[in-house]
């Protein structure tokens, strides 16, 4: 409960400061939070009761976007973790494809959109490709790093007991790498929101990102900010779900390691 308060007190405090600042500055580009909230309500929550007050916009733009985002992130997570573990445990494989991957990692997704357009043509696949291509890297790199950093004694223990490959990967490498993999997953999850927007720059007629950019172009700042806030809310919600999974998966971590209170002076 106190944690809850802690968390939201700061948040609410910032919103209040923002409200006061924008009220004082009175700038069209920075509307007041209350105006944004009104715009958001108008955009998404003024629908019929039968649809839980959700407007058509939610069904036409928000849900498809979220669907693409989750699919893209999910595929990236699958590919990133499996490829990352493989590369992390095999120096040879890493040497072969490492430079290539670094090279691809440095290519801005917007530049690749035309190429994806050629290769995938259809809207959703192309957008998925964009999202995957953008969010894969943190997962991949962190998984490689995590898989590499399995404690030497644990590696030797598993080797000595001739732990079969699948058990070694699932039972030793993944748990060892789990904290790092989760760091990558979390960075990627919010990155996938960013890429969702990027992927809606081209070739779409729906989506949160596309709407946000239209609002931006029309100087409809309350709507634009509402879009930004929606992304924030989504990011927060998705992250909370992921954190829940993470807590389950990392429950074994010694308490003092989990929240490294040991770094702090325990004594008051």
């Amino acid at each position: 409960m106190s944690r809850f308060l802690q968390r939201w007190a700061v948040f609410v405090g910032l919103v209040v400061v923002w409200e006061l600042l924008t009220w004082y500055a009175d700038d069209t580009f920075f509307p007041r939070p209350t105006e944004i909230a009104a715009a958001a309500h108008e955009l998404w929550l003024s629908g019929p009761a039968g649809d839980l007050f959700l407007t058509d916009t939610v069904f036409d733009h928000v849900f498809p976007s979220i669907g693409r985002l989750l699919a893209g992130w999910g595929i990236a997570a699958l590919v990133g973790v499996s490829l990352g573990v493989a590369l992390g445990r095999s120096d040879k494989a890493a040497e072969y494809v490492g430079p290539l991957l670094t090279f691809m990692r440095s290519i801005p997704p917007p530049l690749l959109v035309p190429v994806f357009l050629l290769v995938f043509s259809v809207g959703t696949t192309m957008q998925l490709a964009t999202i995957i291509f953008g969010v894969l890297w943190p997962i991949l790199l962190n998984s490689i790093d995590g898989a590499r950093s399995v404690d030497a004694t644990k590696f030797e223990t598993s080797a000595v007991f001739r732990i079969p490959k699948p058990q070694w990967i699932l039972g030793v490498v993944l748990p060892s790498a789990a904290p790092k993999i989760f760091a990558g997953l979390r960075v990627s999850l919010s990155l996938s929101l960013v890429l969702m927007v990027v992927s809606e720059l081209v070739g779409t007629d729906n989506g949160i990102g596309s709407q946000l950019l239209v609002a931006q172009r029309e100087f409809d700042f309350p709507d634009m900010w509402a879009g930004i806030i929606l992304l924030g809310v989504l990011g927060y919600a998705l992250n909370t779900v992921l954190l829940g999974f993470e807590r389950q998966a990392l429950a074994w971590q010694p308490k003092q390691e989990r929240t490294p209170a040991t770094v702090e002076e325990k004594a008051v």
Partner: protein
Amino acid sequence: MRALTRGLLGVAGFLVIWELFGRSRLVPAEYLPPPSVVAVELVKLLGDEPFLRDVVATLLAVVIAVALSVGIAVPLGLVLGSVAPVRHATRAVVEFLRPIPSVALIPLAVLLLGIGPETKIVLAVYAAIWPILFNTIYALDELDPLLVETARAFGAGRVRVLASVALPSAMPFVLTGIRLAATTSLVVIVSVELLEGGSGGIGQYIANARSGGGRMDVVLAGTAVAGVIGYLLNEGLERAQRRWVGWSAVTGGRS
């Protein structure tokens, strides 16, 4: 050396596939020119002074952005990773801020910072701090408590523990975060240049090539240059990683 050969083999394999694909007439060569065509354009570009100036502009912006992100994210990560109340208190704000795309922030950034390179650098920093921040926090979570207890038992204060125990121990993973951040800021900077222009750079060069009638060979050559820059940045950082935290490779990351 052998690692290098293998890496080159990997790249060569990719180029061969692309060449075959490009020549297969599955797609018109103007839309996706094969590497042989792009390579010619690339050589031309490398002799082109304005292009080289654009490369320098992008590179400088990336370096500045990475330096700033490290300067912000590492100390912040140390604080958030080690002081639980602060982490809880800021979590909502952080989680809210992270998913806001730089693309949506461009007009606001221009409004606040003008059209110069500051805008793209700030947007790049905004995107690049997250991997460093999170990797730092998670690395601290993994910190062996016995190391901390050792330092504390010998009278090290909180700051000393952070600087001399937590940071070195987290360093390998933080460096991975920095490697991610380096390419992320490269990507963001080129994207901003590409989408909005305003301050030169490879992205703008590519955008010009595109707007002048869709010269895909120039576009891909520019893309290849961006990729090579990213590769070199990463390679440099990996070297640093091997040198500074060589111990982690031997001990398997953990003490």
